[in-house]
């Protein structure tokens, strides 16, 4: 009888309990579960669950690629998770760029450049990828105007200086 009891308990634990627990999960949990089926994604989640700041950079480079693929773009979960607080923590706190970099599998430019691999996810700011065009234009004209003014002023000074010398 005791043996049978243990067997039933095991069965309950392995098959029934997860089923009971899954009754309460919402859409996001289902989506997260789908996402976690992917080995790479699982890696990230696992890293997140018991993360070690110094070892985080062992995440394979596919971290970037999986969210860039067409398939992932079609899955709302990728974007949802990417911009969720959890993933935000991973991407921006764990990869907060002040950690040990020796074990990193991808360079900063994978995200932080005009050719950023993080495309199609525009609801948050990535330095190096996102620039304010209006500010850039104002800054350019401000610098150009000051340089031109300085050259004109300097040029007039030189002209007057030469005239004085001649006279």
């Amino acid at each position, binding site marked *: 009888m005791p043996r049978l009891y243990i067997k039933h308990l095991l069965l309950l634990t392995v098959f029934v309990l997860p089923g009971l627990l899954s009754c309460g999960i919402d859409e996001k949990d289902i989506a997260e579960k789908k996402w976690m089926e992917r080995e790479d994604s699982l890696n990230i989640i696992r890293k997140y669950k018991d993360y070690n700041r110094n070892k985080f950079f062992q995440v394979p480079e596919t971290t970037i690629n999986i969210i860039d693929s067409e398939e992932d773009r079609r899955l709302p979960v990728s974007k949802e998770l990417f911009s969720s607080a959890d993933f*935000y*923590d991973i991407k*921006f*706190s764990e990869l*907060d*760029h*002040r950690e040990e*970099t020796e074990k990193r599998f991808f*360079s*900063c*430019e994978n995200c*932080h*450049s*005009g050719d950023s691999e993080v495309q199609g996810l525009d609801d*948050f*700011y990535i*330095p*190096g*990828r*996102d*620039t*304010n065009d209006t*500010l*850039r234009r*104002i*800054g350019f004209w*401000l*610098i150009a105007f*000051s*340089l031109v003014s*300085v050259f004109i*002023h*300097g040029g*007039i*000074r030189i002209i*007057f*200086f030469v005239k*004085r010398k001649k006279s």
Partner: protein
Amino acid sequence: MKVMIIYSRFERYWHWSHVAAVILLIITGFEIHGLFSFMGFETAVLVHDISAWSLILLVAASIIWHIYTGEWKQYIPTRENLGAMLKYYMVGIFKNEPHPVKKTAVLKLNPLQKLVYLGLKILVFPVQIATGLLYYFHNELSLWGFPVTLESIAFIHTAFTYLIVLFTIIHVYLITTGHTVFSNLKAMITGYGEVDE
């Protein structure tokens, strides 16, 4: 005219280390912002961080020095001769007219310089340092519920960088408007300069 020490050793050290830090910060800052690629994002961030922390230490040291020596009084703004200075830069300088403000060891700055440097010291640099620190610690601050986005902080930080670039261009040009083209530069290197008696 007599030649004497105008800029003390600390002032010169403070000025040139400011120059080095600000140039590095501008170049690396623009690279981080994505305006161009020069040394790579990672190196740019590293150099930017080191330069920024160095500049903060330098600013802290200069604040103490200014208070201790009373040199902060140089930056008290005045409207006296302000119009004359503007007129000098727009007209008088071309006709080789005498400088409207006599430079002495006690009075190093003209009214325009006083205004601009004061603006830098009480507005531009504090905003840059504050937004720089908010940028640097944004991840941690976000976890504590800090409401301002990184994009907004970056926007202000970049906008003020353009003002610093503007100041730098005009400042470098105005160096050439001393008694001779290089007299102001020489004074900031050696400490010695010509002053009105």
